[in-house]
């Protein structure tokens, strides 16, 4: 975990086409080697990171909830093709709002090779809440500490090394608007995928009783589904009574993200029509 990419200076690689534009949004990204998810709080410049990496031009507005649908794009690095999925911005993965469900389902069922969590350097505390939640689901995470310039203007100094150390995953400072640090980010994600950079996710210590409950459930889940990468998270969700996870467990099969998303949309429409008819 100590192998931080920032220490290996490789700045002369300007010819590497990080910003190479692969394909437009949607299903046209036919072949890709790796799948990278882009998560983050609303309004952290997540869309800017997405645009800068893919060369796409998603609109970036300064209001919460700007990206309300999932956008996809691609980029190329050292001969490999990466598909980047921009998830809706969320504060958390625990509530059952529509966008949180989309983001969470993708992390869980979409099985990305790596997840980049974009955080706002000016409001680190609030953003780390989401990072810790993502770390509960997957260890293959790179934290993109964006808006470093704003933080500087506000007199905040963010020590990304300390952050990496505490979180157990790499943290890369970036300014997405000027594309500063994005090359580094893409390279780090590649390193995490290949296993060159080891990650060991920090997990928040839950209260004692919760931990006891988890300790009891995790072996049961492990026994039922050996090799499930995130039994702990599944246990968490079961304790919270997550309907989707219950269903996935009962059916024995984890539904694909597409299916999960359709039901979400339909559920919303149904809620509207039923509610409206009262």
């Amino acid at each position: 975990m100590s192998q931080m990419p920032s220490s290996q200076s490789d700045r002369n690689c300007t010819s590497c086409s990080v910003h190479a534009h692969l394909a437009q949004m949607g299903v046209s990204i036919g072949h890709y080697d790796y799948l990278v998810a882009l998560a983050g709080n609303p309004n952290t410049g997540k869309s800017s990171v997405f645009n800068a990496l893919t060369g796409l031009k998603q609109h970036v507005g300064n209001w919460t909830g700007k990206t309300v649908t999932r956008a996809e794009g691609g980029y190329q690095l050292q001969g490999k093709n990466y598909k980047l999925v921009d998830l809706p911005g969320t504060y958390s993965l625990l509530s059952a709002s529509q966008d949180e469900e989309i983001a969470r389902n993708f992390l869980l069922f979409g099985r990305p090779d790596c997840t980049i969590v974009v955080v706002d350097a000016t409001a680190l505390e609030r953003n780390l809440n989401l990072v810790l939640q993502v770390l509960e689901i997957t260890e293959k995470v790179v934290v993109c500490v964006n808006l470093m310039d704003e933080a500087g203007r506000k007199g905040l100094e963010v020590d990304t090394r300390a952050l990496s150390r505490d979180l157990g995953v790499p943290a890369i400072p970036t300014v997405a608007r000027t594309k500063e640090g994005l090359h580094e980010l893409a390279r780090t994600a590649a390193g995490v995928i290949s296993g060159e950079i080891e990650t060991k996710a920090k997990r928040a210590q839950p209260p004692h009783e919760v931990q006891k409950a988890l300790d009891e459930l995790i072996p049961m889940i492990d026994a039922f589904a050996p090799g499930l990468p995130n039994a702990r998270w599944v246990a968490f969700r079961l304790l919270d009574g997550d309907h989707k996870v219950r269903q996935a467990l009962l059916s024995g099969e984890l539904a694909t993200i597409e299916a999960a998303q359709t039901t979400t949309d339909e559920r919303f429409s149904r809620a509207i029509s039923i509610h409206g008819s009262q």
Partner: protein
Amino acid sequence: MSKSLSTPQNILDRSDQLRRALDGDFRDQVVSSLYGEAQRIAERAVRRDSSNKWDLDQRIDRIVTSPVFGLPMMILILAAIFWVTILGANYPSAMIASALFSLEHQAALLFESWGVPDWITGFLWHGVFRGLAWVVSVMLPPMAIFFPMFTILEDLGYLPRVAFNMDWLFRKAGAHGKQALSMAMGFGCNAAGIIATRVIDSPRERLIAILTNNFVPCNGRFPTLIMLATIFVAVDFPPVFASIAAAGAVVGVVLIGVVFTLLSSWMLAQTMLQGEASAFTLELPPYRRPSILRILYTSLIDRTIFVLGRAVMTAIPAGAVIWILANIEAGGTSLAQHVASFLDPLGYAIGLDGVILLAYVIAIPANEIVVPTLMMVYLGADLMTELTSFDEIRALLVDQQGWTLLTAVNLMLFSVLHNPCATTILTIWRETRSARWTTIGALMPLIFAFVVTFLVATLWRALV
């Protein structure tokens, strides 16, 4: 742990038991422990330079949300945007119009010299091309000015402050403050505004926002409003104030739209969508310096070209339809005249005329082509008048077609209140998947439009 204990049902049952045994709210405990951890990590990673106090944002916020200046500033900013749009669009519009119409003229002459049959020349150049020319000249300049300015506001972070200022009003109407965000997006395009309602979590309040978004005049309707304001309102003012008066009139119409948004939200909340306000949590993000290049890209390529492209795509078939209607005759009058005189009684009742209603029927696919349709039907097939300035349009409308101030006022009202365009209706359906709400979303504004214009026309005729 034996395998037999680990059936899915066992796991579920045990997790249910454990959940009930947990003290207090499970979620509270988990979130608290997460935030506790986040706080500790953040404290170690962030050093705060205490000499640089972070209060520029707060100072700006104190002004833009101030009890005294907050609301007037909002209206003033809106008025300023319209004023610049009207001022800046006037001249380029006339230039584009005269260029395109002279092209039409030359091309028609050229076709004539080649011996192409008259009806082909007429259909192609006086039908399809003229529709196109109208749309481009009427729409392009205002959009190219309006969109960049609006995008600046959006990128700065002003919109959430508007939602913050307006929430109380929406709440009184039984709706959600974030509806202000979707309304703001509706200025660009109502379909985009309806998609933006996804930021509202409560299904009930989101539905209200979807159904009432139409009362925000979208960019396809601005040209109509701007034209009417310029022709009928601005003429009564000295030239120096003319554009300000026109902008004031447009803002007035927009405010009427806002009033109707609140009114219809309130009516929905009292009848079909009863309920009280849900939770309102809105982040006021820090102000960000907009990046000029991105703004130009977003507003010109993404928005202007997109909206214009859509308008052009509907203008071409609409131009063809209008030309056919205007040139195929039955019993000595054109089809267009037949339809228009059929609609005339209804049009008269609401202070408009049959041609205007015909224009609105043809413009169902896109509101942008209302003015072009009006012009083409009024001018008919054989008139070759080239209307390149507002003075000439005024002469046509007032002197030849008998428009009055009532016509102008009611057309403005009708433009703000009438049914959404086909794209918007489709978007309502996509977002709600309900035929019922789509129908209501399409018909409620139309009913509003007819009732209001009818009342205005009746009162006006009784009083004036």
